[in-house]
């Protein structure tokens, strides 16, 4: 018997090819059979008509046997799949407007979800070095705030030489702004200080020349060799092969260019600046000027460590080895960290600190895209239900001809999956743009450095899009497909059958109500964040609109504090005499100009606070700093040029610090201590820090720039108030500053508004994503409403005709249809408002200058959705009112 099975199989394979001819033969044979039967019956005395009817009855369902024969002949699964796909394609082509709407719906939902997934993939899932995958690990000092601390250079060398778990260890400091000078140009360029094994670990080969060797990375300050990026080579050196062995000055020291990195190499910190220059760790003192990374004491921890697990080594083994080395590693890094652990984690996605930073944003984006996808799916289900109803005759006919219910449902599901595939493909294309848009929000940071958030898609993103689009189509197509095949055949074929679809009508209304609800939620969130962004950019607490910023870095070229002070005074004097410049101020060279990020112990004299008391934000500023930024002075005076080391030390506090230290009394004239030194408060300024609604105003203290010796001031950040657009003046201002000493790097040149918005990237991004999502949701809900009402109108055409015939007026007809649908929309709007009130608290930390229950945002969202609901129902209802009664009565 086995042989016959094999033969059957072979014959089935042949059957797949010969199906067309075989079917024709079978039809011919069945036809012959029927004719013989009819002749036979006529011969037995039946009338021809009766004979025909009896013969057909005796034969049974032609279509059914045809399908069974087909199944017997080929592979039923493949065969019916192919046939279903062909049939589905034909039927989708036959109704282009439905196909386009449904495809677009899926595409938009999938594009939103895939764009966000592309971002999630980059942040959390993609291996840093794809060639080695999870074998590459980050080794770092686990800090108490969850951050990843850096090692001292000597500790990093110890890991490289001693650790047995790793066969390749790369040490890198990837955020080194290097000031590069050639005879032709000078510019600050982002670079990295790296060990020789860095290139091997990154699994790259030089585009030109070579990378440096371990020997070149062994003796401090000996081998001044540099590798440059392909981008730098093309833009600054014209892609000239003679670039090798050329000499450039980096932070004042001469380096020889020995190689060019490949084009697609972006460094090993995927959310940071793209590196363009690489120098050996032996040249660390050139790459980092604030402390000496090559010595153990005083601590100067700049080295991040990437390592590849040796063959046979495991992650837990590496962790055990690193804990064993913990004490010596920490002693060689920063003794202040001595209580921390040394962590080993696979280098997947961004660094742990960045992942923590993006976690909230990713959650929000994920939420938004899920809501959008849900709306799209609800819309799709609604469209399919309507289509199922419209096709109920076709379906009933196929069932009557003997096709099984499962086969018809399978056919409809094939159509749904085909739609899913079409929509998914369009969605993937859209998502490439979408992910790039998301990443583009991170192209500039608050210090004016260019970032490159590498969010290129990969197979994982593609897989996600395929799975989610097919799943959406399958999940949300199942009910409509089943519903469509559950029609009452007799009723449908007779042309009535509208009663059996009440459940489906209710399901459609509910789907639309759900879409309306989600649209309200998205629009409320969009409104809240948009108002936050405008409140950030409206500078309610200070005026950034006419301020240009720049950073002067005499420290990079070895200025001493005295010389730097003279230099800075000269620059300020020249800038002030420039036409268009109103006022020039400067502040300590750390963090933002307007948002100081250093802290100090600030207290009342005579008190000894506990060691873990919160430190106060503290910075040093020049006279005129507050008036330049437009910060209100609430009392006392500003600093002036008489506040010098020789005069009594003075300070200015903000309102929050004044309230904290002297809750009842005026602050001016009081004494406080900063890092133990007593200063007299001479002025109080308004709280000007911009922050979200959930963060209270932080206390801040300010001291004159040059009066104290907390830390010698060499570099400075300048704020320059100008008339007109600061962007237009940037180049001129830089030229004026350079004219004092061309060797001093002038960096971070940008309008202050860019710095402010750079500090609120997440809020801005969330706001524009939500605006887009809200508009999309509104659009989809409008389509959904329109579809349902149009369908209801079509179904009740005859009823409308009767109503007209008995004297109804058009207005009554319009109201008849609108009232019903708007009730559902109102339900959705109410539910959406409640959901938004509950959900708004979740985004409170993103809101600036606006309450989570902001009435305007809610009103605008509800108003917009209601307007769309009215428009979406009015158009088809109005059409109903124009139905010609005489034609309507003949309908169906």
């Amino acid at each position, binding site marked *: 018997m086995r042989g016959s099975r094999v*033969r059957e199989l072979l014959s089935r394979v042949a059957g797949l090819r010969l199906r067309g001819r075989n079917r024709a033969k079978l039809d011919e044979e069945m036809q012959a*059979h029927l004719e013989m039967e009819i002749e036979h019956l006529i011969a037995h005395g039946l009338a021809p008509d009766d004979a025909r009817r009896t013969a057909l009855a005796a034969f049974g369902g032609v279509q059914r046997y045809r399908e069974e024969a087909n199944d017997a002949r080929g592979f039923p699964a493949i065969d019916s799949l192919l046939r279903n796909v062909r049939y589905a394609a034909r039927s989708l082509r036959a109704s282009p407007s439905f196909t386009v709407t449904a495809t677009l719906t899926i595409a938009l939902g999938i594009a939103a979800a895939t764009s966000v997934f592309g971002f999630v993939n980059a942040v959390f899932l993609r291996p840093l070095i794809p060639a080695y995958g999870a074998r590459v690990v980050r080794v770092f000092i686990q800090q108490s705030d969850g951050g990843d601390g850096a090692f001292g250079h000597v500790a990093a060398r110890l890991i490289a030489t001693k650790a047995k778990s790793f066969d390749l260890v790369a040490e890198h400091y990837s955020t080194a702004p290097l000031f590069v000078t050639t005879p032709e140009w000078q510019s600050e360029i982002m670079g990295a200080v790296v060990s020789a094994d860095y290139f091997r670990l990154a699994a790259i080969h030089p585009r030109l020349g070579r990378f440096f060797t371990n020997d070149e990375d062994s003796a401090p300050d000996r081998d001044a060799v540099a590798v440059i990026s392909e981008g730098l080579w093309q833009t600054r050196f014209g892609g000239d092969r003679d670039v090798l062995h050329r000499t450039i000055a980096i932070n004042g020291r001469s380096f020889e260019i020995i190689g060019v990195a490949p084009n697609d190499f972006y460094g090993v910190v995927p959310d940071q600046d793209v590196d363009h220059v690489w120098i050996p760790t032996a040249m660390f003192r050139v790459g980092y000027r604030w402390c000496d990374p090559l010595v153990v004491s005083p601590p100067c921890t700049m080295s991040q460590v990437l390592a590849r697990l040796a063959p046979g080594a495991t992650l837990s083994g590496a962790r055990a080895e690193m804990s064993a080395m913990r004490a010596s590693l920490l002693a060689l890094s920063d003794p202040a960290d001595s209580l921390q652990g040394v962590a080993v984690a696979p280098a997947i996605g961004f660094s742990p600190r960045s992942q923590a930073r993006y976690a909230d944003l990713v959650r929000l984006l994920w939420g938004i895209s899920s809501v959008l996808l849900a709306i799209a799916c609800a819309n799709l289900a609604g469209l399919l239900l309507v289509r199922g109803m419209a096709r109920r005759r076709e379906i009933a006919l196929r069932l009557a001809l003997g096709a099984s219910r499962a086969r018809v449902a399978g056919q409809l599901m094939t159509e749904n999956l085909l739609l899913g595939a079409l929509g998914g493909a369009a969605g993937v294309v859209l998502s490439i743009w979408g992910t790039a848009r998301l990443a583009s929000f991170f192209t500039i940071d608050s210090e004016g450095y260019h970032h490159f958030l590498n969010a290129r898609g990969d197979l994982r993103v593609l897989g996600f899009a395929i799975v989610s689009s097919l799943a959406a189509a399958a999940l949300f197509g199942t009910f409509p497909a089943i519903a469509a095949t559950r029609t009452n055949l007799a009723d449908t074929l007779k042309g009535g059958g509208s009663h059996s679809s009440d459940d489906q009508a209710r399901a459609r209304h509910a789907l639309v109500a759900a879409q309306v609800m989600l649209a309200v939620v998205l629009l409320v969130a969009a409104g809240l964040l948009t108002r936050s962004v405008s409140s950030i950019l409206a500078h309610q607490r200070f005026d950034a609109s006419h301020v240009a910023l720049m950073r002067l870095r005499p420290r990079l070229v070895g200025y001493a504090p005295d010389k730097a002070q003279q230099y800075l005074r000269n620059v300020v004097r020249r800038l002030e005499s420039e036409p268009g410049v109103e006022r020039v101020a400067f502040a300590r060279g750390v963090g933002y100009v307007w948002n100081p990020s250093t802290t100090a112990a600030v207290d009342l004299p005579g008190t000894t606070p506990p060691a873990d008391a919160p430190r106060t934000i503290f910075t040093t500023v020049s006279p005129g700093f507050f008036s330049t930024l437009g910060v209100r002075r609430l009392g006392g005076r500003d600093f002036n040029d008489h506040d010098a080391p020789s005069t009594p030390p003075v300070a200015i506090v903000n309102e929050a610090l004044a309230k904290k230290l002297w809750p009842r009394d005026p602050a001016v004239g009081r004494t406080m201590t900063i890092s133990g030194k007593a200063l007299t408060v001479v002025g109080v300024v308004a709280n000007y820090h911009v922050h979200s609604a959930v963060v209270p105003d932080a206390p801040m203290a300010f001291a004159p720039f040059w009066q104290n010796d907390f830390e010698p001031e060499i570099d400075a950040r300048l704020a320059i108030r100008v008339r007109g657009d600061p962007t237009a003046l940037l180049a001129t201002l830089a030229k004026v500053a350079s004219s004092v000493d061309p060797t001093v790097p002038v960096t971070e040149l940008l309008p202050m508004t860019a710095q402010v918005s750079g500090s609120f990237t997440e809020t801005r991004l969330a706001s524009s994503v939500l605006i887009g999502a809200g508009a999309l949701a509104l659009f989809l809900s409008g389509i959904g409403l329109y579809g349902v009402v149009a369908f209801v109108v079509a179904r009740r055409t005859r009823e409308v005709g009767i109503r007209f015939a008995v004297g109804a007026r058009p207005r009554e007809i319009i109201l008849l249809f609108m009232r019903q649908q708007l009730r559902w929309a109102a339900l959705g709007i109410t539910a959406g408002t409640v959901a938004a009130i509950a959900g708004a608290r979740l985004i409170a930390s993103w809101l600036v200058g606006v309450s989570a229950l902001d009435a305007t945002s809610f009103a605008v969202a509800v108003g917009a959705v209601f307007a769309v609901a009215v428009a979406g129902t009015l158009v088809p209802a109005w059409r109903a009112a124009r139905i010609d009664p005489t034609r309507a009565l003949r309908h169906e």
Partner: protein
Amino acid sequence: MANAESTGQVLQGTLDLLILKALSLAPMHGWGLAHRIQELSQDAFQVGQGSIYPALIRLEQRRWINTEWRSTENNRRAKYYAITAAGRRAMGVELASWRRFVVAMDLVLDAR
């Protein structure tokens, strides 16, 4: 109508055996075969006439029957089916298994 089930429907799987048996008596075309089965069973089996066609294709694929287009006595072109040697062997096997089945059923049904 979609499922024309009726009493006296042929037991699943036995249609093949009926067809082989009928063809073992003489080669014939589909219509003749349908009538022959009805006749031999004295109309006990209400076989939907069309149901033999899928079965015939199945049997043909196992090479248990041969086919040939020929003219009928009324000069109509029809496809004639004939049993093959393999078909006869298979019929023997199926027949034996059917007999065993009937005996087993009787044993159970006659049990006291």
